[in-house]
């Protein structure tokens, strides 16, 4: 057994199939009762079985990574050619819209238990702990609905422009999609992302701490094009109200200055296809750098006005309580933030040795300039590699080589954006905003890697 351990490199693996399915059940039961002698015995016995070359039945995928130098012959996965090497595979268009591998079913957007009483006024979180690069697969994009989601017939959807315009206009989807379009990568983050950790640690994994965050390539028409089409008063019309066509009819005030910059899009495309129904099909507003609630889904109307609107989600919800009892109103920008996604809470490192620390950084004010990573709770830092592309108001991926010595480590990341702003420590944020703000928690996140390899969500002082 010991030679396996020394030879197997990064991960200490169990030999293949050292337990039968019924043994596995017993292990589960015994393990629950804490009878670890049983597993020791089983483990020892397994060496014999492996040496005897018992053929693979159906190896659980978690074990398939075992990579010991075989005591005899070689790895059965090499020596015994599998069915997929000796048979005929499936044909084209077996599935007209392809799905992820059946081995990937652990990646799901999930609700945080107890957070809401209904599923229609609720949130599901994206599984950041298992995603690569910067793009969120559309089916894993986080969800936030206020009164449920709909799949709206695009041939019946209309878009209206009114208010301080020369003539109020109505456009069909066909017409909107005729106009010159742009495609841009942007992150969308709920203003309440990381809200539950304002005061103390409340949830176990990065999915629940930071998962109200996604990044897609959005395709659509700059809102300024549509306002010009209607002859909007761009000088006196300082504010635009965006309104959804669903039950909640989300309304949010958008500053004209952001619209005239050309950044705000009336979008129908997401990652090369149409928006998903849960994300506003067939039309949503894209307001780069601003919290998700302003990205009005099922967009039916924009109104140009000379005053802000104090809509329900900017005068009752989405207001940030400060220690002096005042609420910050119209606080919309998602300031510079980052998080390590591996190693992160709820994960287990199986052995000492090399790891790739990886994570995401983003800023509502532009591009990410640099990311530093600490493995000692913020005392000392190393600069991480920023991977391309690094785009304005989009997620950026960072990586850093790390050799874990098996000792406890507290991993943090700290991002800086192109304005020079540096992501704050919890203390700095709380000194100004207290702990009851709910929204806009962009503090540095800490993950404790314990000696046993299990990673925990922690906050440090």
């Amino acid at each position, binding site marked *: 057994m*010991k030679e396996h351990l020394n030879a197997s490199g990064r991960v*200490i693996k169990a030999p293949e199939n050292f337990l039968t399915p019924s043994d596995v059940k017993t292990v589960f039961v015994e393990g629950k009762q*804490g009878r*670890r002698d049983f597993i020791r015995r089983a483990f020892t016995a397994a060496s014999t079985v492996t040496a005897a070359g018992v053929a693979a039945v159906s190896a659980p995928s978690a074990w398939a990574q075992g990579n010991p130098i075989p005591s005899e012959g070689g790895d059965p996965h090499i020596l015994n050619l599998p069915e997929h090497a000796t048979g005929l595979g499936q044909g084209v268009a077996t599935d007209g819209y392809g799905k992820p591998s059946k081995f990937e079913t652990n*990646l799901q957007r999930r609700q945080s238990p107890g957070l809401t009483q209904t*599923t229609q006024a609720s949130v599901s979180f994206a599984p950041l702990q298992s995603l690569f690069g910067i793009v969120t697969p559309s089916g894993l994009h986080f969800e936030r609905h206020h009164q449920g989601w709909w799949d709206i017939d695009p041939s019946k959807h209309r878009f209206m422009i009114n208010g301080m315009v020369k003539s109020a206009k109505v456009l069909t989807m066909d017409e909107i999609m005729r106009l010159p379009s742009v495609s841009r990568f942007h992150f969308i983050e709920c203003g309440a992302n990381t809200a539950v950790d304002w005061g103390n640690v409340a949830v*176990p994994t990065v999915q629940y701490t930071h998962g109200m965050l996604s990044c897609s390539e959005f395709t659509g028409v700059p809102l300024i094009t549509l306002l010009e*089409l209607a002859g909007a008063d761009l000088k006196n019309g300082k504010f635009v109200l965006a309104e959804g066509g669903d039950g909640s009819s989300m309304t949010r005030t958008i500053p*004209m200055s952001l619209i005239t910059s050309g950044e705000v899009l009336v979008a129908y495309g997401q990652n090369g296809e149409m928006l998903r129904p849960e994300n506003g099909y067939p039309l949503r507003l894209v307001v780069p750098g601003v919290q998700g609630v302003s990205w009005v889904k099922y967009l039916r109307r924009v109104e140009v006005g000379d005053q802000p609107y104090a809509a329900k989600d900017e005068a009752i919800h989405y207001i940030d309580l400060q220690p002096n009892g005042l*609420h910050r109103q119209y606080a919309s920008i998602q300031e510079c933030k980052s998080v390590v996604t591996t190693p992160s809470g709820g994960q287990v490192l199986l052995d000492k040795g090399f790891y790739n620390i990886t994570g995401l950084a983003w800023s509502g004010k532009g591009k990410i300039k640099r990311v530093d990573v600490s493995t000692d709770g913020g005392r000392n830092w190393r600069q991480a590699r920023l991977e391309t592309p690094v785009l304005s108001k989009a997620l950026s991926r960072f990586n850093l080589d790390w050799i874990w010595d098996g000792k406890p480590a507290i991993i943090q990341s700290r991002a800086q954006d192109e304005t020079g702003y540096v992501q704050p420590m919890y203390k700095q944020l709380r000194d100004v905003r207290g702990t009851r703000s709910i929204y806009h928690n962009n503090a540095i996140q800490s993950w404790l890697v314990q000696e046993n390899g299990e990673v925990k969500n922690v906050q440090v002082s």
Partner: protein
Amino acid sequence: MFKFPKIALTLTLCLTSLTVFSQSTKYPGVGRDATAKEVAAWDIDVRPDFKGLPAGSGSVAKGQDVWEAKCAQCHGIFGESNEVFSPLIGGTTAQDIKTGRVANLTRADFPGRTTIMKVATVSTLWDYINRAMPWTNPKTLTTEEVYAVTGFLLNLAGIVPDDFVLSNKNMAEVQKRMPNRNGMTTAHAMWPGKEFGNASKPDTQNVICMKDCVPEPKVASFLPDFARNSHGNLSEQNRTVGQQKGADTTRAEGSSTKSNATSNGSTTADATATATAAASAAAAKPAESKSDNKAVLALLSKNVCTTCHGIDKKIVGPGFNEIAKKYPGKVDYLAGKIKAGGAGVWGAIPMPAQNISETDSKIIANWLATGAPK
């Protein structure tokens, strides 16, 4: 009837016509002018200066009737319920009405924040109810009902008297009594424009430091052991291939390594084997054939039944287990009740009629009549 908004609109047009309109002629054939009727149908927003508020009125007394019929099942008789949504009413005082600042908002120990503690603008309340309430049937209240319900809530909060009739003519007066009317600030750097003349300097100033930046860090907050599995088994929430695995949170944490971690890693190996075996065992567990019940549970969720009824506990209405116990075999009775609603059988709060298909109500009734199995 609708004089006010029309005047406002005309005024706006007059004012704005003095300024430069930039109407693009670059896209001929795209879009058309909206009709006045279309704009009226969709332009329902009400601004803090009451632009957009339709003329009309509604009494507190009428509001109470509407409230008990259409609102109380979620929000409670007094808007105090915390079962479905955060409470609407409570936490404000007569003194707050004088000062325009809700004193309890300065207290870190005050439990929760009600809508009336937060909202500064009465227009927002009116607009919220008008566009989005009742939650399951938004935009179905008449203008009078919206005034009445808004007035009823203001009455519950002690802002207007019992005999008050809220109308477009006295909304501005009511605004002067909103308990948190002076409780908002735009003095922050998080609005992405200059429209409020707000601050542009961020409120935190962290700096890049690379060496010996902070004293030895101590873990100040972590999840208690009893919450280990509160979000489900984390080993099933991580990819099964890659540089890390998910922790099996159905088991106590690494009992192996705490006491006798050794350098040869054998304890880690044991922990790994145990965790892996357990995870596989959990995954291999044959799925029980609950598909029928699952379909019913999905129906209950889709039709928002579970908002008011727990599977095995009372929420606003009785638990499904209680109903099942009381009406075994009575499919038709239950199907009828589901569709028509009812009052008085289980308590004071009525169940409104449900917009649900015959088939779905039958399926749910059948499930109830057979004991509401999970």
